[in-house]
């Protein structure tokens, strides 16, 4: 009984914290203008939410179910393209598809927006994002059928291979009418479109999408299915012996993970305002994997923290390393373009070699906070004992 009450209280606190965070983002969206020094914060939040969702969805597959898959970028690019293709307004369609006769001419935000006004546009965007996830998960299902029974090393390479195949197919000239071939997709509904009058929502929307999606993943992980995934990761022979259908559960994990990879791809397109298959190479999957490792494999809050740190560090805080001046040290010969990524890769290697558990290990933020509170209480109690003597 007491346990249940504690759980309800914890959930309530978490929800309040998340709501406060969203409100904060909303405020920042209005207050920080492009000329402001802190403008990078918005960019970090926008890109951060994309990568946070990508990292959490990868962690679901690699960290919680133990399936070492390197195909994430492939599902992200499918999501990005699906989102883009279905939200290019009719007027821009032919300009974007300048070398091809576009086959898909419907834009859900536009169609629904015309029918239902502002609310319809929102609905259209939601629909596009959902569609992005669904198409990605459909591909995941098809790919998973042959691939999921492979051993971990082979699974990694097979999924990597499929991601590359997907990337090639999206750039194929013959599919130009759908994908625009090797040209990028643009002019679709993006974050600069997200506003109500003068009220800007350009950071709020991607953050909201990430928060809701990560929330759904958390719910899945905390359910009986989440426990089954962990059992598969810890010992799949025992899991199978205890009645867990390996093929079915691995497929569920793979499909759900890819769904949210697709959603993160759609969000990426929103944030970057372009969708270009060449941006989604294997290197992107590697970066997301490193974010997961940084935060701690098997920790969702770790993946969020890891990805935010990764984005903030590589895009913002270490910027000085690329432009001659950093922490007051002037060294334009050393601090030039590309140096921050070098420093950053070294930091990652240090984490991989010496802090294998990452920042959070396999614990979640509430557990860590609980740990601090216990330590604080113990310290207080010890102090009181001393003073009372």
């Amino acid at each position, binding site marked *: 009984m007491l346990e249940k009450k504690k759980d309800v209280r914890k959930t309530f606190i978490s929800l309040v914290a998340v709501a406060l965070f969203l409100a904060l983002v909303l405020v920042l969206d209005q207050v920080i203008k492009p000329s402001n020094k802190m403008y990078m914060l918005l960019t970090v939040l926008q890109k951060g939410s994309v990568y946070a969702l990508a990292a959490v969805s990868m962690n679901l597959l690699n960290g919680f179910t133990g399936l070492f898959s390197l195909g994430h970028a492939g599902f992200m690019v499918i999501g990005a393209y699906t989102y883009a293709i279905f939200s290019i307004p009719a007027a821009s369609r032919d300009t974007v598809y300048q070398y091809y006769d576009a086959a898909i001419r419907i834009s859900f935000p536009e169609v629904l927006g015309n029918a239902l006004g502002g609310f319809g546009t929102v609905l259209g965007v939601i629909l596009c994002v959902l569609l992005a996830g669904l198409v990605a998960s459909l591909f995941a299902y098809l790919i998973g059928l042959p691939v999921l029974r492979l*051993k971990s*090393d082979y699974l990694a390479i097979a999924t990597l291979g499929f991601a590359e195949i997907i990337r090639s197919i999206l750039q*194929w000239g013959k599919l130009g009418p759908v994908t625009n071939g090797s040209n990028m997709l643009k002019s679709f509904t993006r974050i600069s479109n997200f506003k109500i009058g003068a009220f800007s929502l350009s950071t709020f929307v991607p953050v909201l999408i990430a928060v809701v999606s990560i929330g759904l993943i958390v719910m899945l992980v905390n359910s009986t299915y989440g426990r089954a995934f962990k059992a598969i990761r810890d010992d799949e022979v025992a899991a199978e012996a205890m009645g867990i259908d390996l093929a079915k559960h691995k497929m569920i994990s793979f499909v759900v993970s890819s769904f949210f990879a697709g959603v993160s791809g759609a969000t990426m397109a929103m944030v970057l305002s372009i969708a270009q298959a060449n941006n989604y190479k294997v290197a992107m999957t590697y970066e997301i994997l490193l974010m997961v490792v940084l935060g701690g494999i098997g920790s969702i809050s770790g993946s969020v923290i890891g990805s935010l740190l990764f984005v903030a560090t590589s895009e913002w805080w270490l910027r000085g390393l690329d432009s001659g001046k950093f922490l007051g040290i002037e060294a334009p010969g050393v601090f030039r*373009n590309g140096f921050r990524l070098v420093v*950053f890769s*070294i930091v990652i*290697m240090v984490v991989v070699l010496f802090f294998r558990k990452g920042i959070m290990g396999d614990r979640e933020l509430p557990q860590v906070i609980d740990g601090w509170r216990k330590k604080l209480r113990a310290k207080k109690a010890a102090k009181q004992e001393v003073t009372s003597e």
Partner: protein
Amino acid sequence: MDVLKTALPYVISGISVGGQYALIAIGYTMVYGILRLINFAHGDVFMVAGLMMVYLVTWMPLYLAIPLMIALTVLLGFLIERVAYKPLRTAPRMSVMISAIGVSYFIQNMALYVTGGLNKNYPAIPWISDPVRLFGMETSRVTVITPFLTIALVIALVLLINHTKIGMAMRAVSVDFETAQLMGIKINSVISATFIIGTFLAAIGSVLFFTNFPGVVPTSGAMPGLKAFVAAVFGGIGSVPGAVVGAFIIGICESVIKGLDTILMANGAITEQVGFATFSDAFTFVLLIVILVFKPTGLFGEKTTDKV
């Protein structure tokens, strides 16, 4: 026959690039055989070898630069193993693979920084880059030399594995890591030797490859590396001859597919471009999927059973 004639240049260049892939693939297959590790950084080491040549020739003549480049590359391979893989030998498999990915990431970023993002041009090496006529078409000498050099090196390697003490040690370690240690085999030496040999061959491969494709960029190693790995899996991971056969097959197929539009059009089979070239890279992965699904142990691989 006309088809042969139009296909020939592609087949020949395919054999050449296949040989270059083979030299890289051997490094992958040997390391996997011993450590069960996919050395993601191997392709990038190959690229670094190319970059080193670009810089070294500005300081010294070619006949010094080549051996020095090979020595430095081998040193790099050795150091990577010592720094990034050895500490994780007792860690779960995923950790080592992530470390390999981390090393790959670092090398590429380092190369990007050093080159400033500019394309570097590989120095032309006299004699091997000289044009020759083969079966009535123009090609460079390197295309002819590569397959022979590759096969010679592979034969030397197979002899080493089968007829020397260190080779026997390697075979023992790849069959059973722990028992080999218990039998007094110096694991560290064997592993280092494996990396040294693999890197040495990759360095030679880089000379041949970049003479053919002179543009060196930080990502120059990624694709050839992946393809070489696929070749190793295709031929049966852990088997050196398998990796070589796989690499030649991939090289030839990739090259033919690149030219498939031209070949088919020249012979009237199609009237307009299908755009096969886009798929030449993807084809390698299709091949990989096919072999993993139908014969995961590869063409020449051995079966292993797990004990419950």
